[in-house]
């Protein structure tokens, strides 16, 4: 077998029901068409998880995949994608994790692990090079996600890289996350719930093999230039000092900071949640993902009611959704709530939304103290946050409906609350309130996994070309939806490009050096577009009525103008939303119901998918 440069060369399949593991050679077709990481996840989940599969049943598959850049000598080849049918949305979902897992998986000899079935007892997956075992671990069931990582590190050694779930994952809360390296999470889409449904508490990996590359001297040259450019960048220092926590002040200044369940986008108390306060009040140590000069991870210490805890964070998203969106008063309070979510195994973005939604329902009288079990669920209360988070993780009391996400909780509680259940496709909205940013609004509406910012973080485009401009916004969203997820396919962090301006040209030069393949950057973008359409096809295949109705923002954003702050009075109109969607679908070659056409799928090399959907009568 010829060496597949940039890859470990095999996929590990583990049937958790039987404990049987087998490594299969990585197929050239898969690599050529789908690159790695998220691309592998999308392809394998589309192919192997048929319509109607219960996301929390043994028929769902969890794909853990690195990319060709993971573990290789370049800045921050650190990203691992977790993909499965999402219990939050019922659609394809993926979420990626930084830290040190991706490279380790490849050093052990695997580009991806496909987890199938359900272990008969709580277990963890042990991987050390060719040795693969499903090991029972009843003792760890019920233990916090970080404590579980510590227990396994104590047992196996520090060189093992470990991904875990907390009680929320065990209990299959639909926004349970996968936790790794203390404070790194594959947070979105409930990948932790899928792990929990498989009785899988953790994955522990150690590898001793090298990742082959096509041209080591070319790689050293390009990577050397990249590391030099980063070291010389004057903006590096503030990233090293504050990491993503610095974004809070900026986001507030532009009227984008989610505040009190997205009623507002300006938080009068934002100074207390700033990156400076993180650094001065709670910071202990800088903490990096693999081979990353930025080290945006911030190891912090927080105390609450006499308990002192260490955690990684809070970064911007957590500060936005737990902090301003729940009206908390200090960065230390946010950090403590962050720690609780991490141990419980709750995605801080969705958990922040769920608690803020509860607080708004409580303050409006839609739910009462009788419903909350006595909790005074008011904005600003850390105690309320912690109690509600615990109930969600345990799926008890008001935590039961909330554990299925704000869309489900709104359906249960009624009272018009669906208007301010801030989600798309069943996934809660992340950290950019977008009434004053139409392209960012469209990015959330059309993000393939639900309301997440990372596919097209276009708020800077709105600022650059005009907050009220609609013209051309859809084109920017489409462009970014191809560029940004490409990083998730390659298994490399995108912050060095996004935040420090490292030119994309470097990544284009890395690709042939690492893989020996002659694809241009445009070729890679076409593959990214293929993946985008395959994910859309998953939804179209899944549900006869999937389409335009799934791409709608909550009513709050087009009925309630922003009440105060720098963007007071602004909103996106219903007409704006329809126009943005029409333009977006047209640019994508989808029909006005948001379904890819046969022609588009064929153009992208997805003729077999087109034939399948055509035979089902889903597309034309």
């Amino acid at each position, binding site marked *: 077998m010829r060496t597949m440069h940039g890859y470990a060369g095999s996929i590990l399949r583990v049937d958790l029901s039987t404990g049987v593991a087998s490594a299969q050679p990585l197929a050239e077709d898969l690599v050529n068409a789908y690159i790695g990481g998220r691309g592998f996840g999308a392809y394998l989940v589309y192919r192997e998880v048929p319509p109607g599969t219960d996301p929390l049943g043994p028929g769902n598959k969890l794909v853990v995949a690195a990319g060709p850049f993971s573990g290789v000598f370049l800045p921050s080849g650190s990203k691992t994608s977790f993909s499965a049918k999402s219990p939050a949305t019922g659609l394809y979902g993926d979420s990626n994790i930084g830290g040190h897992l991706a490279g380790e998986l490849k050093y052990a000899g695997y580009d991806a692990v496909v987890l199938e079935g359900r272990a008969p007892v709580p277990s963890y997956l042990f991987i050390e090079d060719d040795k693969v075992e499903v090991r029972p671990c009843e003792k760890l069931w019920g233990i916090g996600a970080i404590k579980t990582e510590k227990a396994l*590190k104590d047992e196996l050694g520090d060189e093992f890289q470990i991904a875990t779930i907390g009680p929320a994952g065990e209990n299959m809360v639909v926004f349970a996350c996968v936790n790794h390296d203390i404070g790194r999470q594959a947070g979105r889409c409930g990948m932790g719930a899928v792990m929990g449904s498989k009785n899988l508490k953790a994955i522990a990996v150690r590898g*001793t093999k090298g990742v082959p590359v096509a041209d*080591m001297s070319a790689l050293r040259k390009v990577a050397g230039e990249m590391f030099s450019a980063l070291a010389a960048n004057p903006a590096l220092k503030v990233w090293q000092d504050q990491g993503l926590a610095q974004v809070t002040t900026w986001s507030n200044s532009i009227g984008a900071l989610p505040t009190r369940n997205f009623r507002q986008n300006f938080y009068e108390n934002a100074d207390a949640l700033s990156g400076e306060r993180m650094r001065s009040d709670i910071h202990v140590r800088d903490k990096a993902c693999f*081979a990353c000069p930025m080290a945006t991870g911030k190891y912090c210490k927080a105390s609450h009611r006499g308990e002192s805890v260490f955690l990684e964070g809070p970064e911007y998203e957590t500060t936005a959704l737990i902090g301003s969106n729940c009206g908390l008063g200090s960065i230390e309070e946010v950090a403590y709530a962050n720690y609780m979510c991490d141990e419980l195994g709750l995605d801080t973005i969705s958990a922040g939304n769920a608690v803020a939604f509860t607080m708004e329902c409580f303050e409006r009288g839609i739910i009462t103290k009788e419903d909350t079990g006595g909790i005074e669920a008011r904005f600003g209360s850390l105690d309320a946050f912690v109690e509600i988070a615990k109930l969600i993780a345990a799926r008890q009391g008001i935590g039961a409906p909330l554990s299925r996400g704000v869309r489900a909780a709104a359906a249960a509680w009624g009272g018009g609350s669906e208007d301010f259940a801030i989600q798309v496709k069943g996934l809660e909205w992340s950290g950019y309130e977008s009434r004053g940013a139409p392209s960012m609004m469209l990015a959330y509406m059309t993000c393939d996994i639900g309301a997440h910012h990372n596919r097209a973080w276009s708020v800077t485009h709105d600022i650059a070309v005009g907050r009220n401009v609609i013209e051309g916004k859809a084109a920017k969203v489409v462009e970014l939806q191809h560029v940004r997820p490409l990083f998730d396919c390659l298994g490399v962090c995108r912050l060095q490009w996004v935040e420090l301006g490292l030119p994309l040209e470097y990544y284009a030069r890395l690709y042939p050096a690492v893989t020996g393949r002659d694809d241009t950057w445009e070729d890679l973008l076409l593959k990214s577009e293929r993946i985008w359409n395959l994910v859309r096809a998953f939804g179209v295949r899944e549900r006869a009525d999937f389409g335009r109705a799934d791409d709608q923002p909550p009513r709050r954003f087009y009925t309630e103008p922003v009440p105060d702050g720098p963007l007071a009075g602004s909103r996106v109109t219903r007409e704006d939303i329809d126009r943005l969607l029409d333009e977006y679908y047209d640019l994508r070659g989808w029909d006005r119901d948001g379904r890819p056409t046969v022609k588009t799928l064929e153009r992208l090399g997805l003729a077999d998918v087109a034939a399948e959907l055509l035979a089902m009568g889903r597309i034309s």
Partner: protein
Amino acid sequence: MELDLDRCTGCRLCQLVCSVTNFSENNPKKAGIRVVSKLFTDARYDVIVCDQCGTCADVCPVGAINMDEGVVRIDADTCTNCGVCIDACPNGALFSHPEVAHPIKCVACGECAKYCPRGVLDALAGLRKVAS
């Protein structure tokens, strides 16, 4: 030898650079340096690397380890990979690897210090960051 451990972020670029430089591989286990996370116990990272003290040379039963202009080097042809030096090293800075027939240790090439984004390893080679 004083490393500036307070500045270490645990990125392990030093391990990766070492394997790329000395073995032409992307393989942080095939390296003469290790970053160890002590976050759970001490809220910090540790770096384990040879300080060229020569204890290994003293204990080597076959004379495969010698001091060469201040750098302790292992002669791969003479070494029997018995592991006595690994056990004797006061810093735990000799590493075995399943694909390498002798212990791996720092040869003071200075590449890790050149790439370390925080200058943690400057003392290793007296070098500065890669960029100027």
